[in-house]
């Protein structure tokens, strides 16, 4: 992108010269560039959407080229679409996730403007459209292949019947379409015969009949998500008869029990991925019958399910191609873990997070055999000690992701082993562990590290962080939540050493000052900054961030007591990509909020306990900010503002979350941790 930008700035004077010198012959050096080359350049202008905008504003020619090149349109406001659409005749993908209000008229507009060009449309964040608009899409855009209707909670069967008119639809998401019943799904089953992917997650009114009909009519289905549907054994056999089914999710299907699984006879040879998490009524017996007919499974997720014992491990052993298994939240026995270790297959991914019963003994046995593991999640396995870590690190040297949040019994020395033995680590979650600077120094050997989470690691200081900053050049995510030992000097190392940083969390790192933010402003890729509860941060630092980090989309400055309106104005000016901000407890007043309102893609706003905020200022800001979808407000404002304003905003697609929490004084980090432990026990 940088290159492209330089290019753009270089060429600009050329054009000017041209125009000055020969008015008659409008020769441009850009005539020498073929369209294809310009398009290739434009392809590289992807990270910041505003780059393309500036490109198109250079000259008429660029304007037309950009219009011609654009395939994906992600409008901020649906009301401008009628004017924008004619400009982009070749748009194939319409992403309306930033438009909370999309009416039938909008869809009709899109349908008639894009016609058969339109391939995909995302309506997952939009409301207020009905079957009429969908019918227009379905009828006019005959090449529509992808449709995301997630969260269309008001959509009824009649609308689903309209969707069914889109005969070429291949991928359809209908998550949380709570009003759609079997009838609507039946229409889709009959109409959209080419469906390959269908997600009916949380379509709680769809039962066996609708799903059964899908299985009968849509033979090409590859991916099917039936999570949380009230389905039973009646539709399961026909689902497993689907010839090409590869990915099946049955999370939280409480209607399925062992008896209904026992009838499964015909094997589904194509199934590769199965998610049967939170199916409370299924034990290892039912699972055994499932696995006996789906022998080609590669990935199995059984989170929050039955106990992982010897029997379950044995039935899993039938799956000769299995390489990934997630057992999060299941009670685990030592014998079960041992049996998994005895499998002939070598696992690539294992997830045992929050499994009670994971002990050193089980893990030791498991990891004496399983040596190819790449991804391991042992979050909250609170019983394990350095014995397990020693075994894991010595056998799985190729580990690329290790999550071991809250393994509190693991002593600080064990973390040195991680760095010494697992050099390929890319993702490491050590939240709430005993790791210290020595450990960090050792971990800094993992030069591929891109995500490091050190939240609540109270033993680390700037010294350790400096090692990370020096060696881990590719770091993209760093979480230092409540690492009270970290100061500006630690950040100096990180900000200097990791220019590609995208996410930083320095929440409640009390020593952090504006200097850190000034340093971070050099990290141009930063899109998420959490500096909640940093009392020394002022508007000055925020202004630097705003000016430097143009990609900023999420900002949390809650409890930054010194930040005021002066910080908001540069933010409003520069951070045109900001989508989410939390301003609670800061000094921001009406003016700051009003200036923020000019950020056109701002969607989520949390403004609790702003002393300087008046009801009228709030009203003006809310009305001015057209793209808001979620606003968290103190309940007191509910009565202070006229109901009509809320009605208006809700009609625009904005959701209000009312909080009644008292103003909270800040706690010390250690004190906070103690309190947390108290509440847990």
């Amino acid at each position: 992108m940088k290159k492209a930008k330089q290019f753009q700035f270089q060429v600009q004077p050329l054009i000017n010269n041209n125009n000055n010198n020969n008015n008659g012959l409008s020769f441009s050096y850009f005539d020498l560039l073929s369209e294809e080359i310009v398009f290739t350049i434009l392809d590289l202008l992807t990270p910041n959407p505003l780059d393309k905008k500036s490109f198109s504003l250079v000259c008429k020619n660029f304007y037309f080229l950009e219009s011609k090149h654009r395939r994906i349109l992600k409008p901020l406001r649906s009301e401008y679409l009628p004017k924008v659409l004619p400009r982009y005749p070749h748009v194939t993908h319409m992403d309306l996730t930033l438009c909370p209000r999309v009416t039938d008229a909008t869809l009709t507009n899109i349908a008639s403007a894009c016609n058969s060009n339109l391939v995909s449309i995302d309506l997952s964040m939009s409301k207020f459209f009905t079957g009429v608009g969908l019918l227009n899409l379905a009828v006019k855009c005959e090449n529509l292949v992808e449709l995301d209707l997630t969260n269309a909670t008001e959509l009824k069967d009649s609308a689903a019947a309209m969707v069914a008119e889109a005969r070429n639809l291949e991928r359809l998401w209908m998550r949380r379409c709570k009003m759609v019943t079997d009838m609507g799904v039946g229409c889709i089953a009959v109409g959209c015969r080419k469906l390959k992917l269908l997600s009916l997650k949380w379509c709680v009114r769809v039962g066996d009949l609708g799903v059964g009909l899908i299985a009968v009519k849509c033979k090409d289905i590859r991916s099917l998500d039936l999570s949380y549907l009230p389905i039973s054994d009646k539709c399961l056999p026909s689902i497993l008869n689907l010839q090409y089914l590869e990915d099946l999710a049955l999370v939280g299907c409480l209607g399925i029990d062992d008896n209904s699984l026992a009838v499964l006879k015909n094997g589904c040879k194509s199934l590769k991925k199965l998610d049967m998490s939170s199916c409370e009524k299924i034990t290892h017996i039912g699972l055994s019958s499932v696995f006996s007919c789906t022998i080609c499974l590669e990935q199995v997720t059984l989170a929050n399910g039955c106990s992982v014992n010897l029997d379950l491990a044995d039935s899993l052993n039938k799956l000769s191609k299995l390489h990934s298994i997630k057992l999060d939240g299941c009670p685990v026995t030592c014998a079960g873990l041992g049996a998994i270790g005895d499998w002939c297959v070598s696992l690539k991914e294992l997830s045992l997070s929050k499994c009670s019963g994971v002990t050193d003994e089980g893990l030791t046995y498991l990891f004496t055999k399983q040596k190819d593991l790449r991804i391991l999640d042992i979050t909250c396995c609170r019983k394990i000690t350095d014995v397990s870590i020693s075994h894991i690190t010595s056998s799985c040297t190729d580990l690329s992701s290790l999550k071991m949040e809250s393994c509190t019994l693991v002593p600080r020395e064990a973390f040195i082993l991680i760095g010494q033995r697992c050099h390929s680590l890319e993702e490491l979650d050590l939240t709430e562990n005993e790791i210290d600077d020595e450990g960090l120094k050792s971990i800094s050997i993992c030069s591929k590290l891109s995500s490091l989470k050190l939240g609540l690691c109270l033993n680390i200081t700037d010294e350790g962080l400096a090692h990370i900053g020096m060696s881990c050049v590719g770091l993209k995510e760093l979480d230092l939540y409540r690492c009270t030992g970290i100061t500006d000097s630690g950040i100096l190392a990180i900000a200097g050493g990791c220019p590609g940083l995208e996410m930083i969390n320095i929440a409640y790192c009390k020593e952090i000052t504006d200097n850190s933010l000034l340093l971070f402003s050099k990290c141009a890729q930063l899109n998420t900054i959490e500096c909640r509860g940093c009392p020394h941060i002022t508007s000055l630092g925020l202004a630097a961030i705003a000016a430097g980090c143009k990609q900023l989309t999420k900002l949390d400055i809650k409890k930054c007591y010194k930040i005021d309106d002066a910080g908001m104005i540069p933010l409003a000016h520069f951070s045109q990509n900001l989508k989410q901000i939390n301003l609670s407890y800061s000094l921001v007043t009406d003016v700051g909020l009003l200036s923020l309102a000019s950020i056109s893609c701002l969607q989520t706003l949390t403004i609790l306990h702003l002393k300087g905020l008046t009801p009228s200022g709030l009203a003006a800001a809310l009305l001015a900010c057209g793209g808001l979808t979620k606003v968290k407000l103190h309940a007191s404002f509910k009565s202070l503002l006229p109901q009509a304003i809320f009605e208006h905003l809700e009609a625009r697609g904005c959701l209000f979350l009312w909080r009644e929490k008292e103003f909270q004084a800040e706690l010390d980090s250690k004190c906070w941790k103690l309190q947390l432990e108290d509440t847990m026990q």
Partner: protein
Amino acid sequence: MDHKEMPCPTADTWGKSFSSGNELLKNISSDDTPLTSSQRPQQKWEDPSMLDYNTRIEPPFQDFKQRSETQSSLPCNPNNHNKVTDEEDVQMNGTIQTEKIQDWDPRAMLNNLNFLEQKIHQLQDLVHLIVGRRSQALGRPDELVAQQKQLITADLTSIIVQLISTAGSLLPSVKPLSGTTPTGQLGQLGGLFLPSTVGPNSGVQPQNNGGNKVSDQSNQMDITVNCGNEQNYNMEEHESKDDEDADEGENLPPGSYEILQLEKEEILAPHTHFCTICGKGFKRDANLRMHMRGHGDEYKTPAALAKPNKEATSEPMLIKRYSCPYAGCKRNKDHKKFQPLKTILCVKNHYKRTHCDKSYTCSRCNTKKFSVIADLKTHEKHCGKDKWLCSCGTTFSRKDKLFGHIALFQGHTPAIPLEETKGPTVPPDRGEGNEAINKVRSINFNFGSNAPNGNEVQNTADVKGNIEDPTGYFSPLNFDTWNFGGFHEFPRPPYEDSESSLSFLIPGSCNYTVPGSCNYTQKTGAESSSNNPE
């Protein structure tokens, strides 16, 4: 009556006939003769059938014309002959019927007779017209005369067809009452009128149908006509076949079962037991026995009142099984995979359900039709509860039945009732399956064709707006550009109390007067408005 609505397999010929009919109509209007006035009502009755007949009969009729000019009573002209016999027929029917009126449902009979009378008058008028024409036509060019001839013939034939069908409708009703005579008559009459309709041009058959359909609206009796005709047809065939059946029956291994076959008349007769004294009919033997008590004390003895079969059953009897008289039916004993019917009631219901018109329409939904009245009654018990509807028009009382149906048939989809807007989900038309599909389709299509125009969408949007379109209150543009002056132009009502709270927006009371910040905001505001494509 539209020709599309007729459940007629030869839709193509209908269409053709219709188009040719248009030409004819033009001719009529150009001619501007008194004929048109007499033509109108008949067209209403059966436009397509008449015209169809018309086109087909054209050549023979010219023939007719020539001959009739010489001498109309020549027996060598089959057409002519038929015509004459037809007329006689009709008259004969009329006389027969007047005699029997007292035995039958008088109202229906009266209707039929009125209709016949009307038709005969029309016929007479037409014949008069022909006569008058002939004298007039001397000075006219031949073409015109020929066209008018055609029209008159068309009328003539159509009326005659109607006459025949209506007259025929009177027949089967007479049958059960007096033993053998009606069948004899029926055979005779059928023999007469069948050739007349099938006669020279086979295209008559659909017309006959059409005629029936027409009278369908005027009187229900007509359905039985159809049956009657059919029966009449098949009778002879079956009589010959019965012999074969008998042979077959002998070939059956003894001790299995005895096959009985009732005739259609018996099956369709409303009553099967008749009083030998007064002739009153009953459905059940027991009822007849109860009735007989009124005729004298000898019928009141326990022996007379006892079930007659009881004693006979003491001997080992062959199991009785029944065969359907309809040739080609699976329940017919000639069928290769013959499946016998168990009781007479089974025979009756089977025959009515499968080989008869469904004449009983549900009064609630006006869609479902039945040939057995008991079926109608069972349906009516839960009619309206059938909320599961398929696009083909079939309704189901259970959702799983609907889904089974849809899984079975290609192209059928669940039909979702258009909530609230259209009261009953079922189209009020009593069409067949295909028609219902058309209905649903057309609804969809209308939807689709309207919406692109924006009308539909506009409407719904309007409705929304009327109810509560708070977006209308505040234009986002005004705020994006920080034009607070515009704020006061908003509609008053929702804001009456908020006006004071928003007073700070008036520039004078505004907090921030830093010129720099103002610049910022104005710029960004402008940007944001042009910013939309991302």
